[in-house]
């Protein structure tokens, strides 16, 4: 049984009065502990794919299964198991962290949903749990009482990572986790993600248009163009010897120093 399975998944949405096809006929399986990069340009459907895996979006056709169970049409009260096992880190920590909450409440949030609370193995978010979560991402424990706007961009993204890991998930989906960060802190956040994912044996789905980042963190890469998977394979092979013209264009457009 794969950790995540997408079977003949399609997704459409309406914008400006027109229907757009974000994904079509996507077949995909992600195994426990696997590190998969999803690359493509803006509008390729890569973010849609990430959101489908967490049940944040509903496909217009097909099935999405997590740990062997379909997550389509699951009512809110039965989502606790999914929330406890899969987390997401978003691109922009400015908008993904609630500006009115202190860090201690933001980070504990995944432990506080009623459905998750019902799981006996989830610890109450006491000071020691929060302090450990902060230490794990290299944040000073004194920052627990700060609000997001009192932190730097790098600190905010570390806090978002602490929140995503506090429920000890089996899957972490990261959507462009470093592209809004200064180059000067990007490397540190990448090191942190890489260490946490390896140590915890998490499955990682990393959505990015930055091939260097994907090459650094992932073992397998999936290339999406206009909602279709056009190429996939081991990261070293796809990024050095792309076979699809779209992948070639992405590789060629990637700037390096």
């Amino acid at each position, binding site marked *: 049984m794969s950790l995540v399975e997408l079977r003949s998944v399609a997704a459409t949405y309406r914008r400006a009065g027109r229907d757009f096809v974000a994904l079509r006929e996507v077949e995909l399986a992600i195994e426990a502990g696997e590190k998969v990069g999803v690359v493509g340009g803006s509008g390729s459907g890569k973010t849609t794919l990430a959101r489908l895996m967490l049940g944040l979006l509903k496909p217009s056709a097909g099935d999405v299964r997590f740990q062997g169970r379909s997550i389509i049409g699951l009512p809110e009260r039965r989502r606790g198991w999914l929330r406890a096992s899969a987390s997401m880190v978003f691109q922009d920590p400015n908008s993904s962290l609630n500006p009115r909450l202190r860090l201690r409440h933001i980070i504990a949030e995944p432990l506080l949903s009623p459905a998750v609370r019902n799981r006996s193995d989830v610890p109450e978010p006491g000071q020691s749990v929060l302090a450990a979560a902060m230490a794990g991402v290299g944040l000073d424990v004194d920052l627990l009482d700060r609000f997001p706007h009192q932190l730097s961009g790098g600190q905010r993204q570390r806090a978002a990572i602490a929140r995503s890991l506090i429920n000890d998930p089996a899957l972490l989906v990261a959507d462009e986790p470093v592209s809004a960060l200064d180059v000067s802190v990007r490397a540190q956040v990448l090191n942190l993600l890489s260490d946490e994912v390896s140590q915890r044996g998490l499955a990682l789905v990393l959505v990015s248009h930055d091939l260097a980042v994907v*090459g650094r963190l992932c073992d397998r890469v999936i290339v999406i163009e206009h909602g279709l998977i056009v190429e996939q394979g081991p990261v070293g092979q796809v990024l050095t010897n792309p076979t699809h013209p779209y992948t070639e264009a992405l590789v060629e457009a990637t700037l390096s120093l």
Partner: protein
Amino acid sequence: MNILEVTDLTVRFGRNRPAVDSISFTLGAHDRLGIIGQSGSGKSVTSLAIMGLLPEHAQVSGSIRFDGRELVGLPEREYRKLRGDAVSMVFQEPMTALDPTMRVGRQLGEVVALHHGERRGSIRDGVLDWLGRVGITEPARIADSYPHELSGGQRQRALVAMALANEPALVLCDEPTTALDVLVQRQILRLLDVQLRDRATVFVSHDLAVVREVCPRVAVMLEGRIVEQGDIEQIIAEPRHPYTAGLIASARIDRVPRDQPLPSVADFYTPAEEA
């Protein structure tokens, strides 16, 4: 002759450490200078100072000479004329830089009209001509669209057209490709490279690899100061300031074996403790 001479420019907001601290650089009429730095380094404040777009409470000292004319202390009325004519800016976020309630063609038309003062019919021609020059394939359809109906790349192209339609002598680009994916970024950088020929350009970015695509010369800003400036290839090959060395090393993600941690700027340079 230099078209832009910035000498000992200092910008303060209140009593804090200056946001820009006594920086100097010059730009020839067809030169391009990249200004690189992280957020808070003073790079954007520098470009806003040149454009005369700083908030009123900013205290500016030193000199910004453009085409022989002093801009520090220039009245807003004069500045407005300058911005419509000889100096313009390409912003990072075209969605906020464009007016969402106005069709793209009308917004561009205002710039065309301002510069040429022509009759109505020829304004439309000017708009379509400019949209074509920035590589928009269906100029008439795009001109009649609202900004939200365009893709990110089309919006940035439209913004480049608006910045250039007044045929400015100096263009300030502030992170013009940061919000774009790599494919569109490549297209916009190529477009800028062509369209900025025969003009002077200041190109502000946090990304040295992006600046290198457009600018032969770079100034590195840190904590309001320029810590080094010169030929970009030489600086990449032999950075003199440890901060620059850190920026370069941390950007070379693809060169570090996966079992080794990535170097970060902090491994090379630690900021002095705040007093």
